[in-house]
């Protein structure tokens, strides 16, 4: 065996993203941002049943990862799943409809915010059990391998899921069997109302490395970086070289859920402001587009107006859409 030190330093050419790609990323991220702001409004206006966990602040992760996936690749998602769902290709109207419990929703109103699934875009579902989807993602990867389909599965979860034993059980098997699954840990610093450092001993990356899994820790607010890393890991997995763990540092700008507005007892206004002013992934991409002269303010405003109009239309559709027929209550219990 060659001594590891003797390996030639791999020198990847850092290619500049194309204008088309960058603008596409921007549209996707902004769509998530405006979608979530609208969800908050629906909550504040008492138009949405229950609660929702907003993805605002983390957009670069969902978009960076999902843009590295094919449409037929799989994702599994979390209670904070709207961003993943949109990034994988779901449409806003049917998502709003689901959030409002309408029959036109992706799950005919049966799932709601925490369970949106969209088989057509490979989204195997949000999950309201922290860490609950790690097995499903790993199983989907195993299935892809067994079927020889060369699909890849991306498993999104918050750093809180590091507390759940299931994750370690399935990472072990993914590593043993070289399954094409990417574990995407979105470290937004908090498990609900507790800083993750109070719940997480040792180093996050080491937890996956211990299972022989290729692991990277990156800044999750830079969509180009997330995308480039994801591409490498996804293609690696697709080639049969096994699972990877992508640890993204990020931040949720809003509360744990829409009702969590008094946050001072667990995190400072100053910390929030710092992230919002310096590490807003949407702003950062807008700045990058400016700097690299790919878009000016006018174009970005125009994009925003387009998306806002689209969202407005979609939410209107959802508000007006009918509820499911009451008889549907005991349909779909069994296939």
């Amino acid at each position, binding site marked *: 065996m060659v001594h590891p030190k003797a390996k030639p330093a791999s020198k990847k050419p850092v290619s500049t993203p194309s204008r088309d790609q960058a603008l596409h990323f921007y549209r996707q991220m902004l769509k998530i941002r405006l979608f979530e702001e609208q969800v908050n409004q629906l909550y504040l206006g008492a138009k949405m*049943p*229950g*609660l929702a966990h907003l993805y605002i602040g983390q957009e670069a992760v969902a978009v960076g990862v999902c843009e590295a996936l094919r449409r037929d690749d799989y994702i599994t998602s979390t209670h904070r799943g709207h961003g993943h769902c949109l990034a994988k290709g779901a449409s806003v109207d049917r998502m709003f409809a689901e959030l409002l*419990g*309408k029959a036109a929703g992706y*799950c*005919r*109103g*049966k*799932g*709601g*915010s*925490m*369970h949106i699934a969209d088989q057509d875009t490979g989204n195997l579902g949000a*999950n*309201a*059990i*922290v*860490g*609950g989807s790690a097995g499903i993602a790993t199983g989907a990867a195993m299935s892809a391998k067994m079927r020889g389909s060369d699909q890849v599965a991306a498993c999104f979860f918050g750093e*809180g*899921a*590091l*507390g*759940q*034993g299931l994750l370690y059980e399935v990472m072990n098997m993914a590593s043993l069997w070289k399954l094409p699954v990417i574990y995407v840990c979105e470290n937004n610093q908090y*498990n*609900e*109302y*507790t800083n993750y450092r*109070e*719940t*997480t001993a040792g180093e996050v990356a080491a937890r996956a490395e211990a299972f022989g899994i290729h692991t990277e820790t990156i800044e999750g607010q830079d969509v180009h970086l997330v995308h480039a890393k994801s591409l490498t890991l996804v293609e690696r997995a697709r080639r049969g070289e096994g699972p990877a763990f992508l640890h993204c540092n990020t931040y949720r700008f809003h509360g744990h859920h829409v009702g969590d507005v008094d946050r001072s*007892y*667990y995190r400072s206004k100053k910390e929030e402001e710092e992230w919002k002013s310096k590490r807003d992934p949407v702003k950062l991409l807008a700045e990058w587009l400016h700097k690299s002269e790919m878009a000016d303010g006018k174009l970005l405003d125009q994009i925003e107006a387009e998306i806002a109009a689209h969202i407005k239309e979609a939410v209107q559709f959802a508000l007006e859409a009918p*509820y*499911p027929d*009451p008889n*549907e*209550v*005991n349909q779909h*219990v069994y296939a």
Partner: protein
Amino acid sequence: MKAPSEHSTITNTVTATRQITFAQAINEALAEEMRRDPRVFVIGEDVAEAGTPFKVLSGLVDAFGSQRVIDSPISVAGITGIGAGAAMTGMRPVVDIMFGDFITLTMDQLVNQAAKIHYMSGGKLKVPMVLRTTLGATRRSAAQHSQSLHAWLSHIPGLKVVVPSTAYDAKGLLKSAIRDDNPVVFFEDKMMYQLKGPVPVDEYTIPLGVADVKRAGSDITLVATSSMVHIALAAADALQASDVSAEVIDVRTTSPLDKEMIIESAKKTSRAIVIDEGYERYGVTAEIASIIADGAFYYLDAPVKRMGAMDVPVPFSPVLEDQTVPTAEAVAEVAKRLCNKR
């Protein structure tokens, strides 16, 4: 949707009472027991500064410090196992499992370990642990945050299971649960936390295993658990208009179950409905209904009816979810049919 009405049955108490919420009653019980016994501590996700998402534990960490009100990682099985180990070695842990649906993650530690250790050790080791969790739907929380899985635990020898319906009962039963030398699973209906009721200023406990007649009646017995006690009481109110006198029995603990009181009531009224918010099939209503059907066989004028939650995963959409839980109207309907009033 459940609309818990307030009914009090504290009759022969001379001590002063005040109106407090179900959540406050839980909080008081914990604070009193922690003050009384240094071995009692609380562990769970966001139990300290956050005081749980339902704010049930607010203030406890200030009173007792973060060594006794312990924020844990999201390790539901882990904290249950740690609770069992601490309980076996001189402490009296109260493990907080945020949603009853998450007890699925604790089943090995709770059922194979905590529940069996006393027996497997031939009576030497004890596991005086309380696991507090929630039940109940209609909160628009969908299938993984709305289940009422107390039937499972009630099935397991070695566990005790508490399903209180009022602030008064919750406080007195939780104190008994903490003092009990066995693992006790304590189910709180999420929708009842803000429900107020009279609670004595002075200390009291309620023994585990004693049901409570929440309303006396002579024509039909409504046996209910937790939130469904309020549905039964509302149904009883409605039935009065149809000249049906319903007796409402709150079982308070599904294990041990106060069979005698339930059977005696059914013998007296000759009719019974059992109402519970768990899935109906193989649920709590089955056990209680079959006990009545057997124990009061020669007294029954009509079959014992069961009304549990609909046998479907709890749907998100309000128009669907509201159909899954028994309502007072539905209970009253069934009762009238059984009593031939229509």
